[in-house]
């Protein structure tokens, strides 16, 4: 079977690619200027471990250095044979071409921010109330529930404020942004992913550093540049008919 790492455009075959999963040789299967980076692998060897995850990522990262447009595939993408890959590229050509154009010359940059509930005013107020009052277990339970709600609301507001401010501070240098908020053990993780033009990456980084200095009370983490994983989330079914039916 063929393990597919990513889809790219305008790429010239090269020997400079790192080995794929299990040390397999990575090569290109191309159709009309769109290429799939693949290696031949037994599906039983496609195991979700750190070694394989890094091998997958290194191939996609290397493709980013060879092509202006890269659509990364999700880990574990297997297609039966070359004919199926060519069918896939042919049938979904317009969709793939549009998405390759969308990410052309761009990379993804991530900014993560953790907001801790301990510092919220809602928590401080509730703790003061609890200390003053002699509460029954039922009242204690309801108060804790209300406190969690208020802390979460305050954390969300803080995250939204920071997200808006960072978006504005870097607005000249990105074309799309995706925001994700997740609660983990009473803390809120804000994840911002920016689609940044490669030519503007250093300007984005400068604007980010300036912003970070102004928001020194918050811990910000910058990651990337990544292949545009967060901007190529879509689903493509493999066609069940053969190549001769495409044209």
């Amino acid at each position, binding site marked *: 079977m063929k393990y597919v790492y990513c889809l790219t455009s305008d790429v010239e075959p090269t020997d400079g690619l790192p080995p794929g999963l299990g040390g397999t040789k990575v090569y290109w299967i191309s159709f009309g200027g769109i290429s799939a980076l693949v290696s031949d692998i037994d599906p*039983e060897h496609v195991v979700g471990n750190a070694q394989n995850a890094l091998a997958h990522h290194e191939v996609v*990262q290397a493709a980013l250095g060879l092509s202006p447009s890269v659509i990364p595939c999700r*880990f574990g993408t297997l297609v039966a044979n070359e004919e199926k890959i060519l069918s896939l590229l042919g049938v979904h050509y317009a969709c793939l071409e549009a998405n390759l154009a969308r990410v052309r010359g761009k990379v993804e940059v991530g900014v993560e921010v953790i907001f801790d509930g301990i510092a919220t005013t809602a928590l401080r107020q509730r703790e003061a109330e609890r200390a003053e009052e002699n509460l029954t277990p039922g009242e204690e339970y309801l108060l804790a529930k209300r406190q969690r709600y208020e802390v979460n609301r305050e954390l969300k507001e803080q995250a939204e404020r920071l997200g808006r401010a960072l978006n504005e501070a870097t607005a000249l240098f990105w074309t799309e942004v995706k925001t994700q908020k997740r609660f983990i053990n009473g803390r809120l993780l804000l994840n911002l992913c920016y689609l940044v033009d490669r030519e503007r990456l250093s300007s984005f980084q400068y604007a980010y550093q300036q912003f970070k200095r102004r928001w020194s009370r918050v811990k910000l983490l910058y990651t*990337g540049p990544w292949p545009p994983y*967060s901007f190529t989330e879509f*689903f493509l079914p*493999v066609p069940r008919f053969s190549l001769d039916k495409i044209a």
Partner: protein
Amino acid sequence: MQQIAHTGEASSLADVLERILDKGIVIAGDIKIKLCDIELLTINIRLIIASVDRAKEMGIDWWESNPFLSSMARKREERRIMEEKDAELEVLKRRIEQIEGVGP
């Protein structure tokens, strides 16, 4: 074109996993999608999830019945094919016996 170097403050294995397992294009073929008992589309997602236990908790266990991905399913499939062949052989034997019985 030059390699793109990482300049991040915190790019770790967790960051890599978060991206390669949850994001990126999904290519799939051969899963059965049914609507009101009518099979609309047959595709087969070949996603390997990092934690099989976690996937099972989420009710995702389709690979267990997929002969490409599960050795047990493969054995079951092989057994089913063998049983079919045995049945075919039995039918052929009976037909030969019938033909021989009515022959000259």
